[in-house]
């Protein structure tokens, strides 16, 4: 029941915010524009938003068809992000199920310890983990990154919170039908947790895809590089050729941008559940 003038005010504000949001996104617009230009045109001022001379295809070829192709980095990133995400989901869902629905000795202790260890910053244990990875013989392998990315007390916590809300009747019904705990977990709990699994999975995928520090420390061979390291590589090769660098940035961002636009609701929900006590 708002008045007419009120709505007009809101419309004006909306327009104003529309302009603000465009300014906010200008760096990304500039990136796309620069990626389509010749190197000379990148620096012209006033900014030529629409290129006079299109150079998109040439820049694209430099990134994808050079000696070192972005395609390899893509494949590495996809592989690592997918495997770590699936492994995290399984491990965290199992732990979440135990912590929410099973009674066992030491449960309180485990849960308390997990909450406490959520506070340890990853950087504080970087040196010893690097030494351990070297000792295990996993330095310069994707396995190192996957191993370090598989465990997350944070996601376990989120999954546990969700699973606490699953009705016990459903689990008891399955048990009466003769299902064991593993069966209940696999055929009842997991399907019921699909929404939270999807949300958590997307967030984990994005984080792994964008991770720079882990690969920087654990990888050495160029052919194992993930996309953020690939960016570093291209910076060393083409650092002064901005149009090519912007094409690389675009290539690094595009998959997540598409993922976000398609699954916007899930991503935003995934980000906000952490911040609101449920």
């Amino acid at each position, binding site marked *: 029941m708002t008045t007419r003038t009120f709505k007009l005010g809101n419309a004006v504000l909306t327009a104003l915010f529309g302009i603000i949001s465009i300014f906010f996104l200008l760096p990304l617009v500039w990136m796309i524009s620069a990626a389509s230009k010749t190197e000379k045109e990148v620096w012209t001022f006033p900014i030529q938003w629409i290129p006079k001379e299109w150079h998109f295809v040439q820049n694209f070829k430099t990134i994808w068809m050079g000696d070192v192709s972005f395609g390899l980095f893509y494949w590495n990133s996809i592989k690592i992000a997918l495997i770590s995400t699936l492994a995290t989901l399984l491990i965290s869902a199992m732990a979440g199920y135990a912590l929410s629905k*099973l009674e*066992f000795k030491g*449960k309180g202790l485990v849960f308390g310890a997990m909450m406490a260890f959520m506070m340890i910053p990853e950087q504080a244990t*970087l040196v010893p983990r690097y030494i351990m990875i070297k000792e295990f013989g996993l330095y310069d392998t994707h396995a190192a990154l996957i191993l370090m990315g598989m*465990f997350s007390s944070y996601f376990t916590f989120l999954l546990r919170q969700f699973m606490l809300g699953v009705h016990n009747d459903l689990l008891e019904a399955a048990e009466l039908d003769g299902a064991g705990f593993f069966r209940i977990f696999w055929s009842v709990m997991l399907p019921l947790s699909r929404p939270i699994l999807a949300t958590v999975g997307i967030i984990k995928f994005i984080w792994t895809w964008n991770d720079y520090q882990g690969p920087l420390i654990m990888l050495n061979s160029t052919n194992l590089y993930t996309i953020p390291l690939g960016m570093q590589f291209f910076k060393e090769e083409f650092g002064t050729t901005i149009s090519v660098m912007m094409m690389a940035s675009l290539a690094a961002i595009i998959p997540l941008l598409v993922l976000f636009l398609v699954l916007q609701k899930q991503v935003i929900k995934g980000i906000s559940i952490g911040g609101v006590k449920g």
Partner: protein
Amino acid sequence: MSQHATVQKRLASRKEKRTYWTRRRREQLAGWLFIAPEVLGMLVLAVFPLLFSLGLSLTEWNLVGGLSAIHFVGLDNFAELFQDNRFLHALKNNIGFTAGTVPATMLIGVVLAAVIHKKLYFKDYFKAAFFVPYICSTVAVAAVWSALYHPSKGPLNQMLIHLGISEPPRWLVDTSWSLVAIMIIYIWQLLGYQIIIFLAGMSNIPDELYEAARIDGASGIQQFRRITLPLLGPTTFFLAITSTISSFKVFDMIKFLTDGGPNYSSTVIVYQIYEEGFQNFRMGYASAMSWILFLLIMLVTSVTWITQSRKVHY
């Protein structure tokens, strides 16, 4: 006869088994089996490394000489830290970085979120628009900004010159501006996250409160100050802690853009850990720094926790 006996025996043992594996015992076992991978991971990748790094911080070790080359040096590393100019620089920069980014993002974030929540049409568009930088790879975003920041040819400085500022900052290559330049990128990238969290908090505030305030004649700004802000307490608390912690861990942009430079003007603790540990291979020294970082984060968290739990009562 003997056959009958074995059958009896088997039945008995099965019965015994069945009584041994009661539902409660099976649940105990299942509980531990389900939690085992997580606990194992936690022990191997968090608990053990934390203790290991505490031990390492008391040693001098360059990794190359193998385990026999470890020398116990007591608290020497910690003593050295506080005479190490680069570390002190890093510490100062970290504090400046947090002071400059956390209040700014939270303030802008809460105001933008309030307007989006209460006043705007196309809310989903605005949520998405402000959130896009957050999901972008930090390294890719940093590459874009480094071009924008180019001291002579970059669009930013071209514009500043156009506006009449004849000597604009040289941004990333300027000792007095490098950290500020990184803070701007950081705020830009993080703002959308803050907005999303604040919006989630705001959607939990019942509309009736605003309805009542409106009837009492409260203006929009009064409603924001008297209803929105106080009721956002838990959200603000959460964001204050998490953003402070993540601002202490800033690394990606600094490694990619400045390598802590020029002249250590943009170095931070995590960057120093990286440099000492993974470039100079001073494992003990880097571990000592890690522990300082860890203790700092603990300190910040507990101080925020204590002050907050005193202040908020409802």
